[in-house]
């Protein structure tokens, strides 16, 4: 999943890039180190200290997702669809949120970097996410397993989980025999 975000890290003025689920759970977070300028993976709470954004990535993801939801609610009376891209240009940085397939791409930019410069790279990122999900879906079908893509987008449909095996993609069995559905991107993030 990191590869999906890497082209964005090469855009000048980018401070942090992340993929966050619609409910704000961070899937991949790449944060620019202040000294070297390299991007550090903070997806699983590595390098405990907050980076350039001065805020814990998981909190940031949740706050950004919350803001996107509030904005979608605010513009709902004006249109049927939620906005696909929102940008908050502020005095200490700029946040751009792009709606992707079942998740959001967040980019934090340095002060003075115009969010318009990211429009094309963000569209490219979303296209890469879609391709990745499609290829994973084909792979899962080939193994006679339920499609990840279908599970991800149709939350109202019954979850296709095999209770007899712990190795199934998209399912895991808890200690007390209870079935928990992991986050759709969980496995993908760990694979890469």
């Amino acid at each position, binding site marked *: 999943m990191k590869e999906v975000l890497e082209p964005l890290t090469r855009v000048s003025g980018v401070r942090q890039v992340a993929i966050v689920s619609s409910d704000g759970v961070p899937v991949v977070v790449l944060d620019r180190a202040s000294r070297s300028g390299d991007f550090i993976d903070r997806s699983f709470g590595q390098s405990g200290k907050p980076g350039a954004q001065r805020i814990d990535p998981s909190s940031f993801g949740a706050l950004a997702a919350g803001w996107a939801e509030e904005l979608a609610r605010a513009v709902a009376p*004006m249109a049927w669809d939620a906005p696909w891209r929102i940008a908050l240009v502020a005095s200490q*940085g700029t946040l751009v949120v792009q709606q992707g397939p079942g998740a959001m791409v967040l980019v934090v930019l340095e002060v003075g970097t115009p969010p318009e410069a990211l429009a094309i790279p963000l569209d490219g990122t979303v296209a890469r996410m879609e391709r990745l999900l499609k290829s994973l879906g084909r792979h899962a079908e080939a193994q006679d397993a339920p499609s990840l893509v279908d599970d991800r987008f149709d939350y109202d449909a019954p979850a296709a989980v095999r209770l007899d095996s712990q190795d199934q993609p998209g399912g895991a069995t808890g200690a007390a025999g209870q079935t928990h559905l992991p986050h759709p991107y969980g496995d993908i993030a760990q694979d890469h």
Partner: protein
Amino acid sequence: MSLFGRFTAKKRLRAAARALGKDASAENYVVLAREYIVVGQTRDVVRVCEEGLAAYPSHPELERLAHRARQLYQEDRLRELATELEAAPRPALHREYCELLLEGGRVQRALEAAERWRAQTDDPESLYYLASAHAELFFDGRRSADGLEAYELAVRAAKGMPQDRRAPRLQFEIARRCGAWEEARRALARLLELMPGNPALESRFRSVLANCANAVPLARALHDVEKSGKFVDDLPEHAGDGEPDDVRALLKELASPFEVRAAVFLRGGTGLVQGAQGATAERTARAVREVLQASRSAARRMALGRPLRIEAEGAFGTLLVSPGDLGNVGVWTKGAVAHSTRTRVAQLSGSDDPGGAR
């Protein structure tokens, strides 16, 4: 620059200096400053502009040149300092580096520089610059975590540098602006110990003492600032604003292009909507207000500072919201927002977003 180019530039420089000697007009100051720019002497550009501004205060071209020259000078000096700091780091260089960054408003870089200084030497002065950077972030973004961090670092810096006035001054500034009068009184008492009998400080101490009866703890005061987005000394919102007639005319102009569906101007509890009518107008105005409210608090919590512009793109078109000193302006367009529309929005809202009209 070639040898010939340098020769002619110096000749022009001498001619410009002679012309200024004969007639000390603002235009001649500008000509001389420009000649110094050509030869790359930024320090002299600043000097000439300052001299010109002393004679012709607020001359726009001299002000612009002085500002640009100061920026260039700072850039040069920062580069020099960075090189020197790599080779032989010492407190004086760190201090100048942090101060230049803070002066230039590059707070994030100042924070990183002070952090590096602290990691290298653990000098208490580095704590003061860390506190200053956090305080700048707090004054701009009003995030309580920044304010608390700044105050605590200033307290530690004051302990490490007992004879230094800067740290207690910073403590006082943070506490005063958020209305934590007890902490402000303590910082002032410390400053009075360092500057006994200072009349300005004594008078401030008396006024702060009078406020102490209604004091709230620092953490609560910081939280209140984050929640309301206002410091105790902030002027009421839109205290000095333009004429409503101007607003109506500008709003009409803003909504005139074919691609603009509606334009909204919000000030206080009133909204003016152009391009939409009846329930649609009300819905649009409410949407703009909600977008603003949500974005203000979210920006604070996400450590992004003050919102300057919000843009939402979707199947509905684009909604551009610009909060500013004169009011909050929202424009809803069918497709992308045109450059001329952005310029008008920035003009109407009085926004200080440099990229608003990009």
